[in-house]
């Protein structure tokens, strides 16, 4: 059990999240990719907290805060997607260009 395994896992999950964030067309899937990226950050935080700061676990406190903010972000993001869907009748990311020009 080394620190590097967990850092590599976090990096892989973060890159998968970025790929899904950029390439997916469905807006709900974009939110799922954002959740994947936040979880990758949490793996990093808890890995460092376990291996570098085992006595006073401050990284776990930060991970709990990240989980809180992620839950709030998911609720607000899904309600925004819902209201956009009511107005435009689609969830295609290619047609969400209201603020583009």
């Amino acid at each position, binding site marked *: *059990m080394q*620190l*590097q*395994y*967990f*850092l*590599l*896992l976090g*990096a892989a*999950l*973060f*890159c*998968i999240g*970025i*790929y*899904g964030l*950029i*390439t*997916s*067309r*469905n807006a*709900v*899937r974009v939110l*799922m*990719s954002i*959740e*994947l990226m936040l*979880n990758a950050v*949490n*793996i990093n935080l*808890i*890995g460092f*907290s*376990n*291996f570098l700061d*085992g006595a006073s*676990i401050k990284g*776990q*406190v930060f*991970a*709990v*805060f990240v*989980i*809180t903010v*992620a*839950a*709030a972000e*998911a*609720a*607000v993001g*899904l*309600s925004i997607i*819902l209201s956009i*869907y009511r*107005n*435009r*009748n*689609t969830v295609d990311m*290619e047609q969400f260009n*209201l603020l583009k020009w």
Partner: protein
Amino acid sequence: MNLAEGVQIVSLGLLSVMMLGAALGVVLFENIVYSAFLLGGVFISIAGIYILLNADFVSAAQVLIYVGAVNVLILFAIMLVNKREDFAPVTRQWVRKASTALVCGGLFSLLALMVLRTPWSLPATQTAPASTTLLIGEHFFSDYLLPFELASLLLLMALIGSVMLARREFIPEQTTPEDKQVPLQLPERPRQPIALAGSSSKSWTN
């Protein structure tokens, strides 16, 4: 964690294979319902990894919040936006996917190089605390008290904001005649498509 080293390595391998496979499934599946259920698999695997890292409280919070709340919320959103639509094909989409995959692979190789090259100066003796819940509670109520209260304020703001954004706007005085067949739909403000050829600005003025 009182497991042997080999057991820890094997369970870490199993959990990481589960996590990465389910994450790839979330990103690559066509059907979004499969993606949502696989997202639950990713969250449960990450909770197992947290247990391997001596973080039992965060693991329980992960299962409760992510699997129990966020994943169910995403499933509800998929059911509310349940519309089978074939997206209009974009010209040269494979270029986008290929370049994104290239960029993500490059970023991962950079991160992996950084992780493997850095000489981590770990402390020699690791003393796991007796109860992580006690320590986290002490942190919350002593030196992280202000962020704790701000998090509760943030949750309240997110609750009110999402209710405000996603509610239906009722039309109060709309009486239907008794003999007429009432169509089966919820009373709702008629949908006004915005940004139709740039002439929709007056729909917001009433």
